[in-house]
């Protein structure tokens, strides 16, 4: 942790906050704008159902501590969600101010304001029960889903252990979110509070290899699967074994942890999802002369949010639509170019290359961002846990899998959504596990 702190200034300078924090007076003015809707649409749009008007009116009244606790009550990762959430399609997208042709209330920034204050004041997470219960729950993966489930259970007095193969907790929250949205240290600061609750963290432990699931099952009453998704899909073209072919998530992790501080030359990113854009923006900010995104289809087919696309344009990212990567060309010095073909969308939406449309794009680095595969190997070891298209099948309201001792949530269940979705899954599962164990106990 300490060496990360020291590496930070350099990265921090390049990745300054995209949405800077509110000054105190501005926060109150913004909070006063909130209409305090009944059954507020923003709350409904939030996967964790944070009572938005309630915390905003607490900011307006000067009750910042109450505001933060209200947020945390619904969403234990309220601080990182305030910064990482795509609020444009969630709370702020649902704000009734749109109907008045006014800017929506800046809910994300207000939430950050309350949470920043909470951390600055040394706030601690509340317990929901004084009881200490004997039941033990194991959470596999230390990402948002497991953290939410663990906090929910620990707050009620259960014994919770989180296992993760990484040296740091947080999963993609720590390793995978663009630094200008959520700095790595802010993610860790938030998780520190969950540690303080008494949740036991075991790092560097890869479940399913040395530590078997059978062993876990013997030791724990309930197992929560919060493993997220696995490796990114391979580009599967000639030259994809070149050392300067990297995965988008790896690129992001490397600069966030200080391993990469500079990128030279021209960069090609393949794919146009949110991760592709995060990686492209990062490459540009880290010094790449030119960053191009190749996408097989058109602007209207991309899976990135519209605001992410617009951000990329602002950062100077070039988009090559209807362009398919065919091969990566290299010399003894490394990658020299990529070979691409122009595509056309035929009848029925069928995509096909245009004949003789091959062209070369000079570059020295290629980043793949065409999605992650499920952790099939590990999930297969979870006894009687049913999968469907690589996703764990659960009861949505409880997160319970087809094996009643196993619960699951987050990307391994929903196929890869947002932090807030994982938190919501984990929270529901945590509450359901508690109910299950409490009933069994009585």
């Amino acid at each position, binding site marked *: 942790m300490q060496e990360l702190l020291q590496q930070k200034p350099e990265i921090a300078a390049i990745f300054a906050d995209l949405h800077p924090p509110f000054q105190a007076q501005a926060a*109150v*003015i913004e909070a*006063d*704008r909130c*209409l*305090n*809707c*009944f*059954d*507020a*649409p923003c*709350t*409904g*749009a*939030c*996967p964790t*159902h944070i009572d938005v008007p309630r915390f905003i009116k607490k900011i*307006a009244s000067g009750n910042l501590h109450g505001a933060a606790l209200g947020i945390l009550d619904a969403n234990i990762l309220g601080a990182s969600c305030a910064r990482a*959430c*795509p609020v444009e*399609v*969630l709370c702020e*997208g649902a704000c*009734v*101010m*749109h*109907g*008045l042709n006014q800017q929506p209330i800046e809910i994300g920034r207000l939430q950050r304001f309350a949470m920043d204050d909470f951390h600055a004041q040394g706030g601690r997470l509340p317990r929901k029960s004084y009881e200490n219960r004997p039941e033990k729950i194991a959470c596999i993966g230390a990402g948002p889903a497991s953290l939410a489930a663990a906090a929910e259970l620990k707050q009620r007095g259960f014994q919770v252990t989180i296992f993760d193969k990484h040296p740091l907790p947080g999963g993609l929250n720590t390793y995978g979110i663009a630094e200008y949205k959520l700095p790595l240290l802010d993610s860790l600061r938030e998780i520190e509070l969950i540690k303080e609750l008494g949740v036991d963290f075991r790092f560097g432990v890869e479940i399913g290899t040395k530590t078997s699931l059978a062993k876990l099952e013997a030791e724990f009453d309930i197992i929560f699967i919060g493993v997220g998704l696995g490796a990114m899909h391979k580009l599967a073209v000639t030259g994809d074994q070149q050392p300067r072919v990297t995965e988008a998530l790896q690129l992001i992790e490397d600069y966030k942890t200080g391993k990469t501080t500079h990128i030279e030359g021209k960069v090609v990113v393949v794919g146009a*999802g949110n991760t592709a854009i995060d990686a492209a923006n990062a490459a540009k900010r880290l010094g790449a002369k030119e960053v191009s995104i190749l996408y097989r289809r058109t602007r209207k087919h*991309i*899976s*990135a*949010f519209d605001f992410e696309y617009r951000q990329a344009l602002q950062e100077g990212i070039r988009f090559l639509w209807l362009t398919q990567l065919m091969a990566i060309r290299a010399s003894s010095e490394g990658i020299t170019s990529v070979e691409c073909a122009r595509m056309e969308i035929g009848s029925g939406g069928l995509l096909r290359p245009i004949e003789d449309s091959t062209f070369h794009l000079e570059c020295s680095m290629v980043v793949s961002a065409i999605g992650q595969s499920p952790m099939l190997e590990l999930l297969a070891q979870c006894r009687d846990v049913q999968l469907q298209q690589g996703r764990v099948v659960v009861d*949505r*309201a409880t997160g319970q899998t087809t094996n009643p001792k196993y619960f699951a949530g987050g990307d391994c269940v*929903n*196929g*890869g*959504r*947002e932090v*807030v*979705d994982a938190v*919501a899954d984990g929270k*529901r599962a945590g509450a359901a596990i508690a109910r299950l164990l409490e009933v069994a106990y009585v």
Partner: protein
Amino acid sequence: MSNYIVKPDLAVTFAGIKSPNPFWLASAPPTNTGEQIMRAFDAGWGGAVWKTMGAQVTNTSSRYSSINWNGQRMMGFSNIELISDRPLDINLRELAEVKKRYPKQALIASLMVESTREAWHTVVQQAEDAGADGLELNFGCPHGMSERGMGSAVGQVPEYTEMITAWVKEKATTPVIVKLTPNISDIRVIAQAAKRGGADALAAINTINSITGIDLDTFIPQPNVDGRSTHGGYSGPAVKPIALNMVQQVMSDPESMLPISGIGGVATWKDAAEYILLGSGTVQVCTAVMHYGYRIVEDMIDGLQNWMCEKGFQSIEDFRGLSLPKVTEWKDLNLNYKVVAHIDEAKCIGCGLCYTACWDGAHQCIHVDRVSGPIDGPVELHLKPSEIEAASRNTITVTPIPKLDAASVTTPSYATPLARIPRVDETECVGCNLCSLVCPVDDCITMVEVKTHLPSETWEERTAECLTGKSC
């Protein structure tokens, strides 16, 4: 807009005092010195009431405090300042100078001295010798001076008010205006006393006794004077409704009715128009000037003239007092008049404030049931607010991801979903106005008259019928 090219004349003659417009500065810090008043006249003010002259005082440091509301500063303002702390002779010398340089503007001397005939005769003589166009008797100062038997100590006792007004009238050759304190149960009693004493005009209201707030760290009320505080005089936008009522009361009572200068929260031409519609001949302004400076009079003049053009009024007298007949006692209101709330679905943004207000603050007749089907009738048949919220909290919501939800992710539309547009149960609606008041959208909730086909009937008429043996 009418076709006037020349804007209407705002000149008024108030109890014989001529003024180019009805906008006067009240006796207060903005009229502390001749230099200030001359700048104010240059800015366009029609008159000024000099900060009260009389027995010399020492003021405290600090003196003011205020109430901010929803991001707006100084919705209410309070002061513990006393009358002028400058020597009387200097004030009078400056007054003479101002009058000489600005002969057309109304220059009123506000006076307050100890309660003896001689003291009042002397100060009246001095003020008139200096050239004051009129005298305003400060019987309203709510702090400091009242402890010395002046200000509101006079204005709260009808006998004193009448006596001192009479003393002043024995001597005065210019019109005498008595400024009334609102810190009394019925302002008409004092107004009547002033009239009996011979007052030519009234000014209302002075500031209202107040404590604006307390510092929650030190527990010291505001304003802090070395660890302690005292009640102050409240003014600003917050007090306008109170002042308008008092002006109406005085102007509707033949025993107290006199030319009146309206004071209390006047900040715009609209405020001024309201005071004039309730009979005021001039208005006096202080807090708004302390907030924004003399320059605000430009829009007060311009806005009032434009409104008058629009309404076809050519002078202040054309509309002065027009609203007085429209204020009656409650017992004279028609009990058979009925309005109900109407929500314009096209304008509704779905905030639900009308629903909450109606359930918690009114009569439980707005419902969110357009989708689940209307159920009119008693409140027990409807979902309660907490049930609706609990259902929402139990829904599973996910972030819409284009890749995963291709079918359901569409371009966002900000049209309010029908399920969020409340519905008024008109059979239950009592027409209280609350929903239309809390609605943040202009003209979304309107109160629509429903014909009852019953003849107008007041409470007085109804109870009179009872007394005469008819059914009621």
